[in-house]
């Protein structure tokens, strides 16, 4: 591990965000071409290296980093276990690819320095949320993440973007208020803010006293992951945001949401009994997302609804609570990050070349953009869970977990299978209406996007195949995280000391 890697991982993206406006000023004054892009690239690469260096250490034991040397529970501590490390790994990988993609994609926009700064703040916020071991600090970084997302949704400043940002801001702030209320309850009850310390004391409290605080957290985080009663903001936000931002949301921000559920519900509250509620919510989320995706005419909205539907699988896996179910859920969130980011990048490529994502205005682009089309096919098959691609591997684990559970677990597996079939149906519909069929005459001269835009998508497409053919790689990746979720004592000892 690089010395001080935990704090560096949070600090580097934020530092980049502070530096970028300055760099952009110098760029304009001294006419240095591409200064913003180079500085961003350097920071992103450094960030990836730092987070990857933490991963091996966190895999076996909790890395506790005391800020300012104040021992918990007095001070704030960064606590990185295998779950945090896995989430951070997904976030920075997606983040780095999105940055590379943005360099070309955003070239034609005004105010790009704000865009990069906000994207860095979003990245830093995400990493801060997953690394912190302090419940109030969790809230602070959650807000950094949220405010950066609200602003990024509005970046294009067209009607959809502004309207979606307003809606997202109101709903999202309500959600974070609920999280804050939950924190207030916890502080009043336990008199401490360090998560590990709260966990130590959790056993002494009657379960009924924890219902309201837990509900506050569930509502707050549910809004963030777009669980079904709170999903209405998401399609608008994904449609309104520029495509790289949608890609980042569906890959990284969704991962943070799932991490928060696993951390708060399972680890902090130790509340495995909420599992059945999560399964029910997950099933509803899955079905509603898929049904809504079927009727969409805009490609980005379709992807957004399919993202909601995929989140349902993750919730179901987590809710089942067995080792296999949790492993399946964590593997699925990894895979989801890979293929959803891939698909949003490809849709972005189409928008970049053609200027629209409405499916009835597109068609026959296979001949113009064969590489994009092929990768879109690959991503569609992966998300529908067709072997031998990665989506199949993780969905298979969730199906098996349902069967292993017995009883109503069979129903869960049956519903999950039906939703997979629906997923295949709407993605084939999308594929045929964009890349096959009659090509409108004005699209005859459309070309492949530049290589720098295709490259990050290619990396993700390769990952889709690799983790599909060798699912054991993925299981090895998520297995320590699953053990970390069930080993509460290890976390407490790791943070508070013996």
């Amino acid at each position: 591990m690089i010395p001080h890697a935990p704090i560096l991982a949070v600090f580097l993206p934020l530092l980049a965000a502070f530096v970028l406006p300055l760099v952009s000023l110098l760029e304009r004054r001294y006419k240095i071409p591409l200064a913003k892009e180079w500085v961003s690239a350097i920071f992103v690469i450094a960030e990836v290296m730092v987070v990857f260096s933490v991963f091996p250490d966190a895999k076996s034991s909790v890395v506790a980093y005391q800020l300012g040397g104040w021992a918990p529970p007095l001070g704030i501590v960064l606590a990185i276990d295998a779950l945090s490390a896995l989430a951070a790994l997904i976030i920075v990988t997606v983040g780095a690819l999105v940055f590379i993609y943005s360099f070309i994609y955003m070239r034609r926009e005004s105010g790009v320095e704000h865009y990069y700064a906000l994207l860095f703040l979003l990245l830093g916020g995400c990493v801060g949320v997953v690394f912190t071991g302090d419940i109030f600090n969790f809230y602070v970084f959650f807000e950094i993440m949220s405010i950066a997302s609200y602003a990024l949704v509005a970046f294009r400043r067209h009607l959809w973007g502004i309207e979606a940002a307003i809606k997202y801001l109101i709903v999202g702030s309500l959600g974070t208020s609920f999280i804050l209320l939950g924190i207030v309850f916890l502080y009043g009850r336990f008199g401490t803010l360090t998560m590990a310390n709260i966990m130590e004391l959790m056993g002494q409290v009657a379960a009924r006293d924890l219902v309201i605080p837990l509900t506050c957290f569930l509502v707050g985080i549910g809004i963030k992951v777009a669980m079904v009663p709170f999903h209405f903001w998401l399609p608008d936000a994904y449609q309104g945001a520029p495509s790289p931002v949608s890609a980042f949301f569906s890959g990284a921000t969704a991962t943070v949401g799932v991490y928060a559920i696993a951390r708060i519900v399972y680890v902090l509250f130790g509340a495995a009994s909420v599992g059945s509620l999560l399964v029910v919510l997950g099933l509803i989320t899955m079905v509603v997302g898929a049904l809504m995706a079927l009727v969409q005419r805009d490609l980005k909205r379709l992807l957004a609804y399919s993202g909601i539907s995929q989140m349902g699988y993750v919730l179901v896996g987590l809710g089942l609570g067995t080792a296999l179910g949790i492993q399946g859920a964590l593997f699925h969130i990894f895979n989801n990050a890979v293929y959803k980011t891939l698909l949003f990048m490809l849709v972005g490529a189409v928008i970049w070349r053609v200027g629209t994502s409405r499916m009835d205005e597109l068609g026959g682009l296979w001949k113009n953009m064969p590489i994009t089309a092929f990768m879109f096919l690959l991503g569609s098959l992966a998300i529908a869970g067709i072997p031998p691609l990665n989506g199949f591997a993780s969905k298979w684990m969730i199906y098996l977990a349902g069967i292993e559970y017995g009883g109503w677990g069979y129903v869960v597996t049956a519903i999950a299978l039906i939703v997979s079939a629906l997923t295949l149906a709407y993605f084939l519909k999308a594929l045929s209406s964009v890349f096959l069929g009659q090509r409108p005459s004005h699209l005859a001269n459309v070309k492949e996007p530049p290589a720098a835009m295709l490259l990050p998508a290619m990396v993700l497409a390769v990952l889709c195949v690799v983790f599909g053919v060798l699912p054991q790689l993925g299981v090895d990746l998520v297995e320590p995280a699953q053990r970390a979720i069930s080993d509460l004592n290890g976390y407490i000892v790791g943070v508070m000391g013996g």
Partner: protein
Amino acid sequence: MSINYAVAMMLVGLGLYCLVVKRNLIKLVIGLSVITDGIHLLLISIGYRSGGIPPIVTSAYMDNLEGFAARAVDPVPQALVLTSIVISVCVLALALSLAIYAYRHYGTLDVRKLRRLRE
């Protein structure tokens, strides 16, 4: 039984009422900030000690630090509220800037009218 908690929760309830009933963007933002203010009030109230003094070591307590620690109110919620107020102001600023932009370009602050403009 004290009234502090009740008032704080009433503020949260009022804010929620405002959020679900009002359509004007500015009023929605006001609702949001009333909710957070209620939560702040609750947070501050939790740290109160009956007959407490502010957590500042005045000259009267310079030589009597134990006495100070036995009488002062909890300093942690005050620090948390300080942080939280800044955060809520930031959300407010962003919300209002979006409102300004929406009003300038689309001529309305009614969220439902904005929604209808999309179609």
